[in-house]
């Protein structure tokens, strides 16, 4: 028996993740021991403090690169750091939304409509467990794109997923829908993890190793045929594609986006996408890069179907959250072109796109939380009619995000689309670029329809009102707008920053 090697962990490189874990545990302890009255403020402070601290840590390690930060389970490198930073920024914005009142169930365990629930609402309660749950999810997301073996990847996947399953069911209003979305998310999520795991098994079988590097070596110097490799790639991809919401593994996302509390939707739509694409980029760019002949055509097909499907179905939506969900499906298709590109430009573009898209998404959902009537959020698009007249600033912000999604110049979305499509074209994937351009045209259709509705339609009788945004929500919206426009007009600093440090190390 070989000697036991004591594990060495590089705490400084892991500190962003560790800080978040620690914050989550502090949150749990607050739940356990703090009195109800101070819980909300304490939780918010801890959550935001944790995330900011973690962001600071990320900044400090931005130029470090290491494959041995956690005994080979984690690789800290440029792309990882950038993605972690993106996740953290998005998470901070999302936490601002989560911290706003009126979003989460008063008592999640109470039966909807029961006296107990009424009692809790009357007492002004709100579940505060969402904060530690959020932090756990963030921790999982931070780990997901830097994981460098299949075990860590799988564990991180579950760490980020489980809290989200739970959070989806915690809505204050329309709780049946919320719980339904939690159930759907959970069942399908678990289903897809099974595929993921099965794929991981075959990759392990093919390469004899669970580390990405081992798989890469096996791909390069593999003996025998590729059947196991291909099965492995296919099934592992199903798990990842499920997370990013690519067709045909997308079906959960509209339902979950609609049912979940809007701040949670914002969080998972933006941050999950970053994390999942981060992991995809790493694994496809490193482990599978030399087998690109096998997966690229498949991904091209999926990307095209995803873009077109997402754009087409979004047109038919009458609910703003569902529409954003389909839009996010379409964007998953666009982002897949970055994976397909398989070059440095594609990597840079994907990271840029993920950040820009994530921020705009959080902003868009933040606006959704503001449009309410007496029964809570109003997501029926027809009732958004005339919003521009009553709340021009809210409507203008939303329009900005929609224009960014549509890829209109001078918004971040345009630079993102341009860079990602040009990277894909550079790699020779012309078909996917053309499909992307065409579906952008389709997508513009429904973004513009919403703008028309807000600005050019007269308000309906049963007016929805826009709540005065709380300071935190206001920060989220304003920051998102500012970033969206700034990145559209002066993308250079970020682009240069990304291109300087975004290099995968092995």
């Amino acid at each position: 028996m070989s000697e036991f090697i004591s594990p060495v962990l590089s705490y400084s490189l892991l500190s962003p993740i560790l800080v978040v874990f620690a914050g989550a545990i502090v949150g749990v302890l607050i739940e356990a021991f703090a009195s109800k009255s101070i819980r909300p403020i304490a939780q918010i402070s801890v959550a935001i403090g944790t995330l900011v601290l973690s962001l600071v840590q990320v900044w400090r390690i931005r130029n470090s690169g290491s494959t041995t930060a956690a005994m080979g389970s984690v690789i800290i490198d440029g792309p990882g750091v950038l993605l972690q930073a993106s996740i953290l920024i998005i998470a901070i914005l999302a936490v601002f939304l989560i911290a706003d009142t009126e979003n989460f169930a008063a008592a999640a365990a109470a039966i909807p409509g029961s006296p107990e629930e009424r009692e809790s609402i009357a007492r002004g309660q709100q579940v505060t467990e969402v904060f530690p749950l959020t932090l756990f999810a963030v921790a999982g997301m931070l780990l997901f794109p830097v994981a460098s073996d299949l075990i860590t990847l799988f564990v991180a996947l579950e760490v980020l997923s489980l809290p989200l399953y739970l959070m989806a069911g915690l809505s204050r209003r329309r709780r049946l829908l919320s719980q339904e979305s939690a159930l759907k998310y959970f069942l399908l999520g678990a289903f897809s993890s099974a595929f993921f795991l099965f794929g991981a098994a075959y990759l392990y079988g093919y390469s004899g190793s669970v580390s990405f590097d081992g798989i890469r070596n096996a791909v390069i110097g593999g003996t025998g045929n590729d059947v196991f490799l291909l099965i492995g790639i296919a099934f592992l991809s199903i798990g990842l594609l499920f997370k990013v919401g690519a067709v045909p593994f997308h079906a959960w996302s509209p339902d979950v986006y609609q049912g979940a509390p809007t701040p949670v939707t914002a969080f998972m739509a933006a941050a999950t996408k970053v994390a999942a694409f981060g992991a995809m980029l790493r694994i496809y760019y490193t482990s599978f890069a030399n087998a690109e002949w096998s997966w690229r055509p498949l991904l091209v097909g999926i990307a095209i179907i995803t873009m077109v499907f997402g754009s087409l179905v979004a047109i038919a939506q009458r609910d703003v959250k569902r529409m954003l969900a389909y839009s996010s499906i379409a964007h998953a298709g666009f982002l897949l072109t970055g994976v397909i590109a398989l070059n440095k430009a594609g990597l840079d573009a994907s990271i840029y796109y993920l950040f820009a898209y994530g921020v705009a998404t959080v902003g868009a959902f933040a606006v959704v939380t503001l449009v309410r009537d007496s029964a809570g959020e109003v997501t029926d698009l027809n009732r958004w009619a005339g919003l521009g007249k009553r709340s021009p600033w809210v409507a203008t912000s939303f329009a900005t995000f929609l224009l960014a999604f549509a890829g209109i110049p001078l918004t971040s979305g345009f630079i993102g689309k341009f860079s990602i499509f040009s990277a894909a074209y550079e790699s020779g994937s012309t078909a996917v670029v053309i499909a992307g351009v065409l579906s952008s045209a389709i997508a513009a259709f429904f973004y513009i329809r919403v703008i028309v509705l807000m600005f050019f339609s007269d308000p309906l009788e049963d007016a929805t009102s826009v709540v005065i945004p709380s300071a935190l929500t206001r920060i989220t919206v304003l920051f998102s707008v500012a970033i969206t426009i700034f990145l559209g007009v002066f993308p250079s600093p970020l682009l240069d920053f990304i291109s300087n440090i975004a290099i995968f190390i092995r």
Partner: protein
Amino acid sequence: MLVNNGLVYLIALPLFGAAVLLLAGRRADRWGHLLATAFSGMSFVLGAVQFYQMLGRSPENRSVSQKLFNWISVGSFNVDAGLLVDQLSICFVLLITGVGTLIHIYSIAYMDHDKDRRRFFAYLNFFIAAMLLLVMGDSYLNLYVGWEGVGLASYLLIGFWNQKPAYATASKKAFIANRVGDMGLSFAIMIAFATMGTVSFSGVKEAAEGTSQGALTAIGIMLLLAATGKSAQFPLQAWLGDAMAGPTPVSALIHAATMVTAGVYLITRSNFIFDAAPTAQLLVVIIGAITLLFGAIIGTAKDDIKKALAASTMSQIGYMVLATGLGPVGYAFAIMHLLTHGFFKAGMFLGAGSVMHGTGDEVNMRKFGGIRHFMPVTFATFGLGYLAILGVPPFAGFYSKDKIIETAFYSGGIKGIIIGSVALFGAALTAFYMSRLMILTFAGTPRYDINHPPHESSFLMLLPMGILAIGSVTSGFLLARGDALVHWLSPLFEAHEGHGEEILPPVVISLMALGVVILGAAFAWFKYGRNPVSDTAPTEVSVFTRIARRDLLQDDFNESVFMRPGQALTRLLVKTDEVVVDGTVRGVASATLESGAALRSTQTGFVRSYAALIVIGAIALIAAIWAVTL
């Protein structure tokens, strides 16, 4: 070539007058007509001075030019805004400004009661300017500007009383017909530029030598098309009758004396092209011959005094065009007839206007009769014009028309006989319808409302009529004496060797012409002079008469061949645009929407079907793997 920097004032004065009258608005109502008349008169004086100076120079040095500025210059396409006055132009200048000024004077009285008289004079001045530009431009493109300018003036004047929809339509019709002709002028210019690289008269004349027959023929035919439009020649003649909607002085000036003769000017001016393109020249003759008869036949059937005169104009211009088609020998005669016709036809139109003025704007000759008793001066001046147009010696028409008939006969072979006979027959018809007109109007028993007898017009109207009548009497003699005009113009044309084959002595032809004129007049006398005339047109008439009354079906033809199909095409295209072109756009949009709605149904809400979707996706992936690893 001499340069004279004063030429531009000829044009600038009336143009300035028009601008002042239009811009000053109602403020100029009181003195506007006088100013306009003065400007027109000054132009005439300038023209006369010019003419006088020309007379003092040797024939080769008579043309003067002025370069105003470089107008359009792109690559090798280089056109100056330049003026040219030569022996041909000066004839027109004098005619335009002279007759024009007379008509200005006439109109002061004629339009006295119209509250828009100022506007009328502005248009008249504008017309003078445009027409002068037409005849003074030194290139086809400059001519084109004047060409369309007179078209615009004509449009404005025909539609002067455009509150009547029919008049407005008439003006539009005139403009459109002219535009068709203008298209010909455009083509001609384009071909000229493409083949010769220049569009100035001198340049084209120079280059015509080395240019292929085909190109020249094409240019010639296109110029002819332009001429048919402007000069109301077949097949673009239909607008002229309707153009009588304008005030009568307009008909006299524009639609009798000057503008409609612009086609003759154009062909004459382009003699170097037609001389080198016999096919085009033959076509000119044919068009002229057809129009000559066409107008004459229409003239026989018209009861509207102005329309009868218009038909006569068309026919007379047919003579001129025919003459221009006869080559070097014909040009001078065409111009001569043009000038004499300018006098007598303008005079008759003014006379007709005077009659109308005296009878309360009645134009139906069947409502006249015996007017000579009430309007002796008008009768006298009109009668002199009548004799002139009939070609009775020694009145003006005798000198000009007989020459044309003669030249037609002498143009050679069977062609000469045919066109000569046509011209002769035209003369007979002319005699018939003009006599009919005279008889119906001035002779016979009164058919007007006895309670409102006609009255003679004012001096201001009678003065121009008198002057023109003098012209009708003397101009032919003056121009023909010693072949004055022929010699005057000869430096412009290719030298020609006398007449063609003289198949008959000139005297015989003159006698024949006189004979047929007497026959025609006599026939008219028998038909209208001896019997009382009904004050409504008889309805039981032959089909030929009916066709003649309908202007030989010219409008029916245009309507069924161009207008209706055009309207149908328009409707079809509007429909096409809506259903096919925009329909495709909307179809794509709605197909997108519908496919979105259809795909939406895959989202059933059942977790199990979502799971099935994932399984299907997985199967697709492994099926692909299965296929590639075979």
